[in-house]
Protein backbone atom coordinates (compact mmCIF):
# COMPACT_ATOMS: atom_id res chain seq x y z
CA UNK A 1 0.00 0.00 0.00
CA UNK A 2 1.72 3.18 -1.00
CA UNK A 3 1.98 6.21 1.24
CA UNK A 4 0.67 8.27 -1.65
CA UNK A 5 -2.53 6.26 -1.83
CA UNK A 6 -2.98 6.53 1.92
CA UNK A 7 -2.57 10.32 1.91
CA UNK A 8 -4.97 10.66 -1.01
CA UNK A 9 -7.50 8.59 0.84
CA UNK A 10 -7.14 10.72 3.96
CA UNK A 11 -7.92 13.85 1.95
CA UNK A 12 -10.94 12.17 0.38
CA UNK A 13 -12.19 11.10 3.81
CA UNK A 14 -11.75 14.58 5.24
CA UNK A 15 -13.71 16.03 2.32
CA UNK A 16 -16.42 13.40 2.87
CA UNK A 17 -16.66 14.39 6.51
CA UNK A 18 -16.96 18.08 5.65
CA UNK A 19 -19.67 17.29 3.11
CA UNK A 20 -21.50 15.35 5.80
CA UNK A 21 -21.25 18.34 8.15
CA UNK A 22 -22.68 20.65 5.50
CA UNK A 23 -25.77 18.47 5.32
CA UNK A 24 -26.06 18.72 9.08
CA UNK A 25 -26.66 22.44 8.72
CA UNK A 26 -29.82 21.70 6.78
CA UNK A 27 -31.38 20.18 9.89
CA UNK A 28 -29.87 22.43 12.53
CA UNK A 29 -30.70 25.64 10.67
CA UNK A 30 -34.36 24.98 11.45
CA UNK A 31 -33.39 25.62 15.07
CA UNK A 32 -31.28 28.66 14.23
CA UNK A 33 -28.01 26.78 14.49
CA UNK A 34 -25.42 26.99 11.72
CA UNK A 35 -21.91 25.66 11.58
CA UNK A 36 -19.50 27.97 9.76
CA UNK A 37 -16.88 26.56 7.37
CA UNK A 38 -14.25 27.41 9.99
CA UNK A 39 -16.36 25.66 12.64
CA UNK A 40 -16.61 22.58 10.43
CA UNK A 41 -12.85 22.45 10.02
CA UNK A 42 -12.40 22.77 13.77
CA UNK A 43 -14.99 20.06 14.33
CA UNK A 44 -13.21 17.80 11.86
CA UNK A 45 -9.96 18.32 13.76
CA UNK A 46 -11.69 17.82 17.11
CA UNK A 47 -13.22 14.57 15.92
CA UNK A 48 -9.89 13.29 14.61
CA UNK A 49 -8.17 14.27 17.84
CA UNK A 50 -10.90 12.68 19.98
CA UNK A 51 -10.70 9.44 18.00
CA UNK A 52 -6.94 9.43 18.37
CA UNK A 53 -7.06 10.22 22.09
CA UNK A 54 -9.66 7.56 22.76
CA UNK A 55 -8.06 4.96 20.49
CA UNK A 56 -11.08 4.59 18.27
CA UNK A 57 -11.63 4.23 14.55
CA UNK A 58 -14.57 5.65 12.67
CA UNK A 59 -15.07 4.95 9.00
CA UNK A 60 -17.90 6.10 6.80
CA UNK A 61 -20.71 8.05 8.42
CA UNK A 62 -19.59 9.92 11.53
CA UNK A 63 -21.34 10.04 14.88
CA UNK A 64 -20.94 13.82 14.79
CA UNK A 65 -24.01 14.06 12.58
CA UNK A 66 -26.01 12.08 15.12
CA UNK A 67 -24.68 14.27 17.92
CA UNK A 68 -25.82 17.40 16.09
CA UNK A 69 -29.18 15.83 15.29
CA UNK A 70 -29.54 14.75 18.90
CA UNK A 71 -28.78 18.15 20.38
CA UNK A 72 -29.93 20.72 17.84
CA UNK A 73 -33.48 20.92 19.18
CA UNK A 74 -32.35 21.51 22.75
CA UNK A 75 -33.74 24.81 24.02
CA UNK A 76 -30.43 25.42 25.77
CA UNK A 77 -28.28 25.25 22.66
CA UNK A 78 -27.75 28.70 21.17
CA UNK A 79 -25.87 29.83 18.10
CA UNK A 80 -23.37 31.83 20.18
CA UNK A 81 -21.88 28.78 21.82
CA UNK A 82 -23.03 26.19 19.31
CA UNK A 83 -19.63 25.41 17.80
CA UNK A 84 -17.79 25.40 21.11
CA UNK A 85 -20.44 23.17 22.65
CA UNK A 86 -20.26 20.72 19.76
CA UNK A 87 -16.49 20.43 20.11
CA UNK A 88 -16.86 19.48 23.76
CA UNK A 89 -19.74 17.12 23.12
CA UNK A 90 -17.77 15.31 20.43
CA UNK A 91 -14.87 14.86 22.86
CA UNK A 92 -17.22 13.63 25.57
CA UNK A 93 -19.05 11.29 23.21
CA UNK A 94 -15.96 9.32 22.22
CA UNK A 95 -14.77 9.31 25.82
CA UNK A 96 -18.07 7.83 27.02
CA UNK A 97 -18.14 5.42 24.12
CA UNK A 98 -14.95 3.87 25.46
CA UNK A 99 -16.06 4.20 29.06
CA UNK A 100 -19.15 2.11 28.40
CA UNK A 101 -17.08 -0.55 26.63
CA UNK A 102 -19.25 -0.16 23.53
CA UNK A 103 -22.22 -1.47 25.50
CA UNK A 104 -24.34 1.56 24.61
CA UNK A 105 -25.32 2.30 21.05
CA UNK A 106 -24.51 5.73 19.63
CA UNK A 107 -28.14 6.75 19.88
CA UNK A 108 -28.50 5.59 23.48
CA UNK A 109 -25.38 7.44 24.51
CA UNK A 110 -26.37 10.63 22.72
CA UNK A 111 -29.82 10.42 24.29
CA UNK A 112 -28.29 10.02 27.75
CA UNK A 113 -25.94 12.95 27.16
CA UNK A 114 -28.77 15.08 25.88
CA UNK A 115 -30.93 14.35 28.92
CA UNK A 116 -28.08 15.30 31.21
CA UNK A 117 -27.44 18.43 29.17
CA UNK A 118 -31.06 19.53 29.39
CA UNK A 119 -31.38 18.54 33.05
CA UNK A 120 -28.54 20.90 33.87
CA UNK A 121 -29.90 23.77 31.78
CA UNK A 122 -27.46 23.35 28.93
CA UNK A 123 -24.33 22.77 30.98
CA UNK A 124 -21.74 20.93 28.92
CA UNK A 125 -19.71 20.78 32.09
CA UNK A 126 -22.43 18.69 33.70
CA UNK A 127 -22.30 16.23 30.80
CA UNK A 128 -18.52 16.01 30.78
CA UNK A 129 -18.01 15.79 34.52
CA UNK A 130 -20.65 13.16 35.17
CA UNK A 131 -19.83 9.50 35.35
CA UNK A 132 -21.21 7.15 32.78
CA UNK A 133 -23.00 5.24 35.53
CA UNK A 134 -24.77 8.33 36.80
CA UNK A 135 -25.77 9.34 33.32
CA UNK A 136 -27.13 5.91 32.47
CA UNK A 137 -28.90 5.54 35.79
CA UNK A 138 -30.56 8.90 35.34
CA UNK A 139 -31.69 7.91 31.90
CA UNK A 140 -32.86 4.43 32.86
CA UNK A 141 -34.87 5.47 35.88
CA UNK A 142 -35.90 8.87 34.57
CA UNK A 143 -34.41 10.66 37.55
CA UNK A 144 -34.53 14.41 37.63
CA UNK A 145 -31.56 16.55 38.55
CA UNK A 146 -32.75 16.85 42.18
CA UNK A 147 -33.55 13.21 42.57
CA UNK A 148 -30.20 12.38 41.09
CA UNK A 149 -28.44 14.55 43.63
CA UNK A 150 -30.59 13.18 46.45
CA UNK A 151 -29.54 9.69 45.48
CA UNK A 152 -25.91 10.70 45.64
CA UNK A 153 -26.51 12.36 49.04
CA UNK A 154 -28.20 9.19 50.31
CA UNK A 155 -25.24 7.13 49.17
CA UNK A 156 -22.88 9.46 50.99
CA UNK A 157 -25.05 9.29 54.17
CA UNK A 158 -25.04 5.50 54.02
CA UNK A 159 -21.28 5.56 54.05
Amino acid at each position, binding site marked *: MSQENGSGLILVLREQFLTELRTVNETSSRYGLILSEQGMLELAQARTRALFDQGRVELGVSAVKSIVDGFCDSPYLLQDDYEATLLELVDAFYYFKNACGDQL*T*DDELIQAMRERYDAYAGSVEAVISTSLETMCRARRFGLTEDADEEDEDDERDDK
Partner: protein
Amino acid sequence: MTNETTSNALLTLAPDAPSYSENPEILYLLLEERIRRYTMGDSTSVPVDTARRLLESILYCLDIQRRADKNALPDSAPMKTRWQAGVDAAKRTAKRAKLLLLQAQRTPPPLSNTAYCDTLTALPAFFAGYDADFFAQEIPCSFDYPLCQPVSDALFGAEYIQDFLRRMLAENAFLRAFSADALLSLYEKYYIDYADLLVNLYLPAAEMATLCALSGAPVRALSLTPEQLASINQKLLSINDAEARQRMEDAADSALFELGLTSDFLCAYTKQAARDLLVRLRATCE
Protein backbone atom coordinates in the same frame (compact mmCIF):
# COMPACT_ATOMS: atom_id res chain seq x y z
CA MET B 1 1.35 8.64 13.73
CA THR B 2 -0.02 12.12 13.44
CA ASN B 3 -3.47 13.21 14.46
CA GLU B 4 -4.32 13.76 10.83
CA THR B 5 -3.96 10.10 10.02
CA THR B 6 -5.63 8.73 13.12
CA SER B 7 -8.89 7.40 11.87
CA ASN B 8 -7.19 5.95 8.83
CA ALA B 9 -4.15 4.62 10.57
CA LEU B 10 -5.53 1.15 10.04
CA LEU B 11 -4.43 1.29 6.48
CA THR B 12 -0.90 0.71 7.70
CA LEU B 13 -1.69 -1.12 10.92
CA ALA B 14 -1.09 -4.65 9.77
CA PRO B 15 2.51 -4.66 8.54
CA ASP B 16 2.88 -8.42 8.93
CA ALA B 17 -0.25 -9.28 7.05
CA PRO B 18 0.20 -10.14 3.41
CA SER B 19 -0.85 -6.92 1.72
CA TYR B 20 0.04 -7.68 -1.91
CA SER B 21 -1.27 -4.74 -3.85
CA GLU B 22 -4.82 -4.39 -2.64
CA ASN B 23 -6.38 -1.07 -3.50
CA PRO B 24 -6.51 0.86 -0.19
CA GLU B 25 -9.68 2.66 -1.13
CA ILE B 26 -11.58 -0.55 -1.81
CA LEU B 27 -10.03 -2.12 1.26
CA TYR B 28 -11.23 0.88 3.26
CA LEU B 29 -14.77 0.46 1.93
CA LEU B 30 -14.74 -3.23 2.75
CA LEU B 31 -13.48 -2.53 6.26
CA GLU B 32 -16.13 0.13 6.68
CA GLU B 33 -18.77 -2.39 5.67
CA ARG B 34 -17.38 -5.01 8.06
CA ILE B 35 -17.36 -2.51 10.95
CA ARG B 36 -20.94 -1.59 10.15
CA ARG B 37 -21.92 -5.26 10.16
CA TYR B 38 -19.94 -5.92 13.31
CA THR B 39 -21.63 -3.12 15.23
CA MET B 40 -24.94 -3.87 13.48
CA GLY B 41 -25.28 -0.17 12.84
CA ASP B 42 -25.39 0.61 16.55
CA SER B 43 -22.08 2.41 16.54
CA THR B 44 -20.18 4.35 13.92
CA SER B 45 -16.86 3.85 15.70
CA VAL B 46 -14.99 0.93 17.21
CA PRO B 47 -11.83 0.66 19.32
CA VAL B 48 -8.64 0.61 17.26
CA ASP B 49 -7.99 -2.95 18.39
CA THR B 50 -11.34 -4.16 17.06
CA ALA B 51 -10.77 -2.38 13.76
CA ARG B 52 -7.29 -3.88 13.54
CA ARG B 53 -8.67 -7.38 14.12
CA LEU B 54 -11.35 -6.85 11.48
CA LEU B 55 -8.76 -5.59 9.01
CA GLU B 56 -6.46 -8.51 9.73
CA SER B 57 -9.36 -10.84 9.12
CA ILE B 58 -10.07 -9.26 5.73
CA LEU B 59 -6.42 -9.50 4.69
CA TYR B 60 -6.20 -13.05 5.99
CA CYS B 61 -9.30 -14.14 4.05
CA LEU B 62 -7.95 -12.52 0.88
CA ASP B 63 -4.76 -14.46 1.46
CA ILE B 64 -6.56 -17.76 2.05
CA GLN B 65 -8.53 -17.27 -1.13
CA ARG B 66 -5.35 -16.51 -3.02
CA ARG B 67 -3.77 -19.73 -1.78
CA ALA B 68 -6.77 -22.04 -1.71
CA ASP B 69 -8.88 -20.98 -4.61
CA LYS B 70 -6.25 -19.81 -7.05
CA ASN B 71 -7.93 -21.06 -10.17
CA ALA B 72 -11.49 -20.12 -9.28
CA LEU B 73 -10.96 -16.39 -8.79
CA PRO B 74 -8.24 -14.26 -10.35
CA ASP B 75 -6.67 -11.37 -8.44
CA SER B 76 -8.56 -9.06 -10.74
CA ALA B 77 -11.92 -10.23 -9.33
CA PRO B 78 -13.69 -7.73 -7.02
CA MET B 79 -12.12 -7.62 -3.58
CA LYS B 80 -15.39 -8.36 -1.83
CA THR B 81 -15.91 -11.48 -3.94
CA ARG B 82 -12.39 -12.68 -3.17
CA TRP B 83 -12.82 -11.88 0.51
CA GLN B 84 -16.13 -13.79 0.62
CA ALA B 85 -14.47 -16.77 -1.07
CA GLY B 86 -11.75 -16.57 1.60
CA VAL B 87 -14.34 -16.56 4.38
CA ASP B 88 -16.02 -19.60 2.81
CA ALA B 89 -12.64 -21.33 2.56
CA ALA B 90 -11.93 -20.58 6.23
CA LYS B 91 -15.32 -22.03 7.18
CA ARG B 92 -14.64 -25.17 5.15
CA THR B 93 -11.26 -25.51 6.83
CA ALA B 94 -12.92 -25.19 10.23
CA LYS B 95 -15.37 -27.95 9.30
CA ARG B 96 -12.56 -30.23 8.18
CA ALA B 97 -10.65 -29.45 11.38
CA LYS B 98 -13.72 -30.39 13.40
CA LEU B 99 -13.73 -33.80 11.76
CA LEU B 100 -10.07 -34.16 12.68
CA LEU B 101 -10.92 -33.31 16.28
CA LEU B 102 -13.59 -36.02 16.33
CA GLN B 103 -11.02 -38.42 14.95
CA ALA B 104 -8.50 -37.38 17.60
CA GLN B 105 -11.12 -37.97 20.30
CA ARG B 106 -11.89 -41.41 18.88
CA THR B 107 -8.27 -42.46 18.53
CA PRO B 108 -6.37 -41.47 21.66
CA PRO B 109 -2.84 -42.69 22.30
CA PRO B 110 -2.50 -45.67 24.70
CA LEU B 111 -1.15 -43.31 27.35
CA SER B 112 -1.86 -39.61 27.67
CA ASN B 113 -0.83 -36.85 30.04
CA THR B 114 -2.52 -33.83 31.59
CA ALA B 115 -1.44 -31.40 28.86
CA TYR B 116 -2.76 -33.74 26.16
CA CYS B 117 -6.11 -34.25 27.89
CA ASP B 118 -6.50 -30.53 28.66
CA THR B 119 -5.80 -29.67 25.04
CA LEU B 120 -8.32 -32.15 23.76
CA THR B 121 -10.85 -30.74 26.21
CA ALA B 122 -10.04 -27.14 25.21
CA LEU B 123 -10.18 -27.59 21.44
CA PRO B 124 -14.00 -27.80 21.09
CA ALA B 125 -14.10 -24.20 22.35
CA PHE B 126 -12.38 -23.20 19.13
CA PHE B 127 -15.27 -24.47 17.04
CA ALA B 128 -17.81 -22.86 19.34
CA GLY B 129 -16.07 -19.49 19.21
CA TYR B 130 -14.55 -19.36 15.73
CA ASP B 131 -15.97 -16.49 13.73
CA ALA B 132 -14.75 -16.61 10.13
CA ASP B 133 -16.99 -13.70 9.13
CA PHE B 134 -15.28 -11.21 11.39
CA PHE B 135 -12.16 -12.68 12.96
CA ALA B 136 -11.07 -15.51 10.67
CA GLN B 137 -7.44 -15.25 11.75
CA GLU B 138 -8.11 -15.76 15.45
CA ILE B 139 -7.95 -18.87 17.60
CA PRO B 140 -10.56 -18.42 20.31
CA CYS B 141 -9.27 -21.06 22.68
CA SER B 142 -6.16 -21.81 24.67
CA PHE B 143 -4.25 -25.08 24.65
CA ASP B 144 -0.72 -26.01 25.52
CA TYR B 145 0.11 -29.56 24.46
CA PRO B 146 3.56 -29.33 22.87
CA LEU B 147 3.71 -31.13 19.56
CA CYS B 148 6.99 -32.73 18.53
CA GLN B 149 7.10 -30.46 15.49
CA PRO B 150 5.01 -27.37 16.17
CA VAL B 151 2.63 -25.77 13.72
CA SER B 152 4.14 -22.97 11.66
CA ASP B 153 3.66 -19.46 13.07
CA ALA B 154 2.59 -18.44 9.57
CA LEU B 155 -0.72 -20.27 10.01
CA PHE B 156 -3.71 -18.66 11.69
CA GLY B 157 -7.30 -19.40 12.60
CA ALA B 158 -8.83 -22.64 11.34
CA GLU B 159 -5.73 -23.41 9.28
CA TYR B 160 -3.65 -23.45 12.46
CA ILE B 161 -6.07 -25.75 14.27
CA GLN B 162 -6.34 -28.03 11.25
CA ASP B 163 -2.58 -28.39 11.03
CA PHE B 164 -2.30 -28.84 14.80
CA LEU B 165 -4.83 -31.68 14.70
CA ARG B 166 -3.22 -33.22 11.64
CA ARG B 167 0.07 -33.40 13.51
CA MET B 168 -1.58 -34.63 16.67
CA LEU B 169 -3.36 -37.39 14.74
CA ALA B 170 -0.10 -38.46 13.09
CA GLU B 171 1.55 -38.63 16.51
CA ASN B 172 -1.43 -40.59 17.89
CA ALA B 173 -1.33 -43.04 14.99
CA PHE B 174 2.34 -43.68 15.70
CA LEU B 175 1.80 -44.11 19.45
CA ARG B 176 -1.12 -46.48 18.92
CA ALA B 177 1.27 -48.93 17.32
CA PHE B 178 2.81 -49.54 20.74
CA SER B 179 1.53 -51.16 23.90
CA ALA B 180 0.79 -49.00 26.93
CA ASP B 181 3.37 -50.98 28.92
CA ALA B 182 6.15 -50.29 26.43
CA LEU B 183 5.30 -46.61 26.36
CA LEU B 184 5.02 -46.33 30.14
CA SER B 185 8.41 -47.96 30.60
CA LEU B 186 9.93 -45.58 28.03
CA TYR B 187 8.32 -42.44 29.49
CA GLU B 188 9.48 -43.32 32.97
CA LYS B 189 13.05 -43.41 31.72
CA TYR B 190 12.71 -40.36 29.49
CA TYR B 191 10.73 -37.94 31.66
CA ILE B 192 10.66 -37.48 35.42
CA ASP B 193 6.89 -37.15 35.44
CA TYR B 194 5.40 -37.60 32.00
CA ALA B 195 1.84 -37.42 33.29
CA ASP B 196 2.03 -33.92 34.73
CA LEU B 197 4.88 -32.28 32.85
CA LEU B 198 4.23 -30.28 29.72
CA VAL B 199 5.89 -32.85 27.47
CA ASN B 200 5.31 -34.43 24.10
CA LEU B 201 4.39 -38.12 24.10
CA TYR B 202 5.43 -38.93 20.54
CA LEU B 203 9.04 -37.73 20.64
CA PRO B 204 10.54 -40.39 22.96
CA ALA B 205 8.71 -43.16 21.12
CA ALA B 206 9.79 -41.91 17.69
CA GLU B 207 13.39 -41.56 18.78
CA MET B 208 13.57 -44.91 20.48
CA ALA B 209 11.83 -46.65 17.58
CA THR B 210 14.37 -45.15 15.17
CA LEU B 211 17.25 -46.24 17.39
CA CYS B 212 15.79 -49.73 17.74
CA ALA B 213 15.53 -50.01 13.95
CA LEU B 214 19.08 -48.71 13.64
CA SER B 215 20.42 -51.38 15.95
CA GLY B 216 18.26 -54.14 14.51
CA ALA B 217 16.27 -54.59 17.75
CA PRO B 218 12.49 -55.10 17.74
CA VAL B 219 10.88 -51.70 17.36
CA ARG B 220 7.71 -52.45 19.34
CA ALA B 221 9.74 -53.15 22.48
CA LEU B 222 10.97 -49.55 22.58
CA SER B 223 13.94 -50.66 24.62
CA LEU B 224 17.68 -50.85 24.13
CA THR B 225 20.44 -51.82 26.49
CA PRO B 226 23.12 -49.24 27.37
CA GLU B 227 25.57 -51.28 25.31
CA GLN B 228 23.32 -51.13 22.25
CA LEU B 229 22.93 -47.36 22.68
CA ALA B 230 26.68 -46.88 22.99
CA SER B 231 27.24 -48.96 19.90
CA ILE B 232 24.76 -46.85 17.88
CA ASN B 233 26.41 -43.70 19.10
CA GLN B 234 29.80 -44.94 18.04
CA LYS B 235 28.48 -46.04 14.67
CA LEU B 236 26.95 -42.61 13.98
CA LEU B 237 30.07 -40.75 15.06
CA SER B 238 32.29 -42.79 12.79
CA ILE B 239 30.51 -41.67 9.61
CA ASN B 240 30.05 -38.25 8.03
CA ASP B 241 26.96 -36.05 8.47
CA ALA B 242 25.27 -36.87 5.19
CA GLU B 243 25.70 -40.60 5.66
CA ALA B 244 24.54 -40.46 9.29
CA ARG B 245 21.48 -38.47 8.27
CA GLN B 246 20.68 -41.04 5.59
CA ARG B 247 21.03 -43.89 8.08
CA MET B 248 18.70 -42.17 10.52
CA GLU B 249 16.11 -41.59 7.81
CA ASP B 250 16.38 -45.20 6.65
CA ALA B 251 15.99 -46.34 10.25
CA ALA B 252 12.87 -44.21 10.64
CA ASP B 253 11.51 -45.76 7.43
CA SER B 254 12.23 -49.28 8.69
CA ALA B 255 10.61 -48.56 12.03
CA LEU B 256 7.44 -47.31 10.34
CA PHE B 257 7.45 -50.32 8.01
CA GLU B 258 7.78 -52.69 10.96
CA LEU B 259 4.91 -50.90 12.69
CA GLY B 260 2.76 -51.11 9.56
CA LEU B 261 2.44 -47.33 9.25
CA THR B 262 2.46 -46.01 5.70
CA SER B 263 1.22 -42.40 5.84
CA ASP B 264 3.48 -40.06 3.87
CA PHE B 265 2.94 -37.30 6.38
CA LEU B 266 3.87 -39.52 9.31
CA CYS B 267 6.89 -40.75 7.38
CA ALA B 268 8.16 -37.20 6.82
CA TYR B 269 7.29 -36.29 10.42
CA THR B 270 9.23 -39.24 11.85
CA LYS B 271 12.20 -38.68 9.55
CA GLN B 272 12.38 -35.10 10.79
CA ALA B 273 12.33 -36.37 14.38
CA ALA B 274 15.17 -38.76 13.48
CA ARG B 275 17.22 -35.95 11.91
CA ASP B 276 16.67 -33.77 14.98
CA LEU B 277 17.82 -36.65 17.19
CA LEU B 278 21.01 -36.99 15.16
CA VAL B 279 21.77 -33.29 15.64
CA ARG B 280 21.32 -33.68 19.40
CA LEU B 281 23.43 -36.85 19.54
CA ARG B 282 26.25 -35.16 17.66
CA ALA B 283 26.02 -32.04 19.82
CA THR B 284 26.25 -34.21 22.96
CA CYS B 285 29.35 -35.98 21.67
CA GLU B 286 31.07 -32.73 20.72
